[in-house]
């Protein structure tokens, strides 16, 4: 008996391609040898195992990430980081290269129609001391940072909510990204963090710095409190450092004094 022939017939049987003549041949082979029966059973079991393997769960963020990548608008003219990244991403291979890099890129989907309104915060997701924003109270945007490149875009709003400063962030990270928010020269200190959409993979905080690591679509708010000892009036600045794999890829600023 040919093992290969037996396997061919069993494979045809598995795929529903066994002719009547081949079915008879298979029957004869199985009757002639118990080993043949074992081989047939093993192939059937392998087939069954593959068929019962569950589909890999589809990542929640991926659909929107792909849509954002397909629909990203023309890059805005902006000095510094955005212009530099624009030069890199104008070439197709580089676009794929950046997209495929194991490093992190922050992409924030801009919502041009979003109203400037307060955000409800979930106290269960807060880090640090908690001072939730409540209802319709005084609200203004002090400074706003929009980053828009082929690989990432972002919306960072420094807001004043009833006297408290907050940085509201909307992100869409194609790949994991590290963001360091440096408050050393800001005249403010870290108070608490609320994740309103998605969960950041890691967060570490001190009074003068917030470090975040995340992937996919995230929305969170960093609440700040005034640093009474600070002497930065008129020159206050919040530094935002974006990095991937330990390498800084961009630096931006927000100005609490605007």
């Amino acid at each position, binding site marked *: 008996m040919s093992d290969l022939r037996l*396997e*061919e017939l069993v*494979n045809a049987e*598995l*795929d529903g*391609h066994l002719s009547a003549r081949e079915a008879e041949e298979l029957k004869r082979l199985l009757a002639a040898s118990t080993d043949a029966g*074992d081989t047939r*059973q*093993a*192939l059937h*079991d*392998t*087939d*069954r*195992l*593959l*068929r*019962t*393997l*569950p*589909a*890999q769960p*589809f*990542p929640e963020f*991926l*659909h929107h*990430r*792909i*849509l954002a*990548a*397909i629909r990203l608008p023309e890059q805005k003219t902006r000095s510094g980081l955005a212009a530099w990244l624009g030069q890199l991403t104008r070439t*197709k291979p580089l676009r*794929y290269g950046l*997209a*495929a890099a194991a490093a992190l890129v922050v992409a924030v989907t801009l919502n041009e129609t979003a109203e400037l309104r307060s955000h409800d915060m979930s106290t269960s997701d807060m880090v640090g001391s908690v001072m939730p924003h409540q209802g319709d109270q005084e609200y203004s945007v002090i400074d706003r940072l929009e980053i828009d490149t082929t690989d990432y875009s972002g919306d960072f709003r420094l807001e004043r909510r009833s006297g408290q400063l907050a940085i509201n962030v909307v992100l869409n990270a*194609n*790949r994991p990204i590290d963001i360091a928010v440096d408050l050393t020269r800001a005249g403010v200190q870290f108070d608490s963090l609320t994740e309103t959409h998605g969960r950041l993979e890691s967060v570490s905080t001190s009074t003068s710095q917030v470090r975040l690591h995340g992937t996919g679509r995230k929305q969170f708010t960093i609440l700040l409190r005034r640093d009474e000892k600070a002497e930065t009036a008129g020159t206050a600045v919040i530094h935002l450092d974006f990095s991937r794999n330990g390498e800084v890829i961009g630096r931006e600023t927000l100005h609490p004094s605007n």
Partner: protein
Amino acid sequence: MEDLLTEYEKPVFNAAFRMLGNSDDAADITQNVFLKAFENIRSFNPGHRFFSWIYRIAINESIDQLKRRDRAQWVDEEIIDDGPAPQKCAADSEVAEKIQSAMLSLNDNHRAVIVLHYFCECDYRQISETLDIAEKTVKSRLCSARRLLKRQLAHHGLKPS
């Protein structure tokens, strides 16, 4: 394009995952597949089926990623011993990992036909169209792949209950 994305993103992701064994890589590949499809949609020949075109991109992108990772391994038929047949249900996560591990031990050609047949629900003709190979070759590769998987699963300790 969004309709096509909605229809094919999950099977493309699942195919990429089964080719690569890594969810992050599969997500990246899935994104690359649709970016390429979007950018090259004008070159798509309507005489062909869209699924075979997009699955071909997915398989090729996955293979390119594997080459970059340099993790493709051949299974030497002479080395792997026959063992007891695999019978446990794949719903068990440990078993599922072993099956995935066994699949990753196949070469790219064998793994591609297994992925298209079992995870993209392609028949011989559809696999032939997607990979641009003869149906006879599909049949032969599927047969070899199953044989290798049977042995590899036994090697991974999946024994009869």
